[in-house]
């Protein structure tokens, strides 16, 4: 494998790892549901794509790469769809609005 | 008795097993009991699969290399079927829970016993009182 491909793989995996860490951090520290959702939905898809791309570069042109591409495609369809469903269901099932909005009405947040 | 860190897997398995057992005997909710049984089941599966692992081995799907080391295929076979049978039996347990809920309106062991025998609990009356309303 050429140095350039190696470097590309490295870079992609490192970036992916960083993004995944951001996901965890966001879910853990952000104040309420909708912002946590925002933190995971984007980073999950991006992080997964980056890591899988790094792996695909490692694998070269093989059946494994084809399968990795399948996984990537699958995650790219299902990730956003699941996020959409998550936010929509929460809204339909009356999950309270973000605390900041409620504070404007003079009501302190539950958390 | 020596505590070899190489037995870590088995300790966790025992912890899981005891957690499942504790759930089954201390919780009154029937679905919670089924969940406890599931935890117990996973611990048993984990136990078998841990035993099947060979250091430096690979999955028992043969490759061309002559001196490849493989992990033990037998626990895999046994546990593979056990998982599917496990979900089928879980389904039976859950179906029973659904019917019990339809008959008694609750899944709590205490409340079911109370409806069946009255507030004094089993043993106080001579037999089940037949005055409960289904649903």
């Amino acid at each position, binding site marked *: 494998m050429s140095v350039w491909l190696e470097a590309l793989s490295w870079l992609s995996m490192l970036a992916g790892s960083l993004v995944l860490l951001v996901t965890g951090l966001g879910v853990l520290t952000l104040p309420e549901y909708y912002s946590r959702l925002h933190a995971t939905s984007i980073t999950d898809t991006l992080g997964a794509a980056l890591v899988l791309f790094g792996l695909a570069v490692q694998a070269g042109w093989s059946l494994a790469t084809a399968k990795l591409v399948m996984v990537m495609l699958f995650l790219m369809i299902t990730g956003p769809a699941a996020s959409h469903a998550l936010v929509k269901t929460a809204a339909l099932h009356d999950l309270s609005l973000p605390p900041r909005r409620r504070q404007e009405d003079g009501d302190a947040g539950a958390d | 008795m020596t505590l070899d860190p190489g037995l870590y897997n088995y300790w966790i398995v025992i912890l899981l097993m005891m957690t499942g057992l504790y759930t089954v005997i201390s919780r009154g909710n029937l679905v919670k009991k089924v969940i406890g049984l599931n935890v117990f089941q996973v611990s048993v599966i984990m136990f078998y699969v841990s035993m099947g692992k060979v250091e430096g081995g690979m999955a028992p799907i043969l490759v061309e290399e002559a001196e490849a080391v493989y992990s033990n*295929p037998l626990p895999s076979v046994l546990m593979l079927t056990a998982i599917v049978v496990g979900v089928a039996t879980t389904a039976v347990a*859950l179906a029973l829970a659904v019917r019990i809920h339809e008959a008694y309106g609750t899944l709590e062991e205490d409340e079911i016993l109370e409806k069946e025998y009255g507030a004094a609990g089993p043993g106080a009356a001579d037999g089940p009182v037949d005055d409960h309303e289904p649903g």
Partner: protein
Amino acid sequence: MLALIDVVLLAFLAVTAVAIVRLRDLFAAVMVTGIFSLLSAGLFTVMDAVDVAFTEASVGAGISTILMLATLAVTQDVEKKRWRRRFSPLALGVVVVTGAALVYGTSDMPRYGDPDAPIHHYLAPHFLEHTPDEINEHIPNVVTAVLASYRGYDTFGETTVIFTAAVMVLMLLGGAATIDRRRPGGGRMGANVVLRASAKPLVPLILLFALYVQFHGDFGPGGGFQAGVIFAAGLVLYALVYGPDRAQAIFTGRRLEALVALGVLIYGGAGVAGIVLGGEFLDYDLLAADPQDGQHRGIFLVELGVGITVAAVMTTLFLLFTGRGQPAPWEDRVGESEGTP
């Protein structure tokens, strides 16, 4: 590195199990059970049991969770505080004593991964060495060979157990519900256009993938059990997004029941064929002129039978659990609101 993953995932697993016991919100407990399954499936991969991981991923994280959620939806989903104390010292005592005894017992066990452990010196070397010459040289997956041929009788028993479980659930839930209530899972997300648009192309892909897993089981991880569950998962996804009634347009209750039995019959038939051809029950050598071809044919038939039964059973179970109750008022609108944002 793999050892580190093993240690960390096992620690996660232990924490998750404790969390499951402590959660009184059953809905949350079931969801954490989903994590529990994912973790254990990851561990099975670390421990080289890819076929088990395959099954656990599809059964534990998929079907089992869905069945529990469906049960909670028709019953109650919060565990009540017990009248007696929640904390039970007697139970804890029993558990601690048993656990201590078991930990003491492990001190005599071979350590994890020990190649000299007794378990690796009995039947396993035979299976690993002789699968190419006794079964078929084109079946590298020893797990499939052992499952369908060496231990075919055992697997037949397991398939029958699944069949029996399906019959029992049919007897318990097959009739009409005795109380009036809404059908679970008829939530308002059914008409959601994004879900429909993303599920529509996925369902055929999932079914195709299930067939791949079914027929690729000789070469890689997979086989009838896994394929059956994945096939059922595809139908479940369709039923979740489009409603159970539309899913039942093709797979009606009666047809599914017939399929449940058909799979077991195919398996048993492959066994009886051995007797008819002058051999023993489940003796595949005689199914073709060449014993190796016969083995291949036998394993194919048996896996097919298992796949059909498992797929039909899982779909039936799902439909039985979710079919309990009346359609929700908004479910009637599902058909017409299709295509509206």
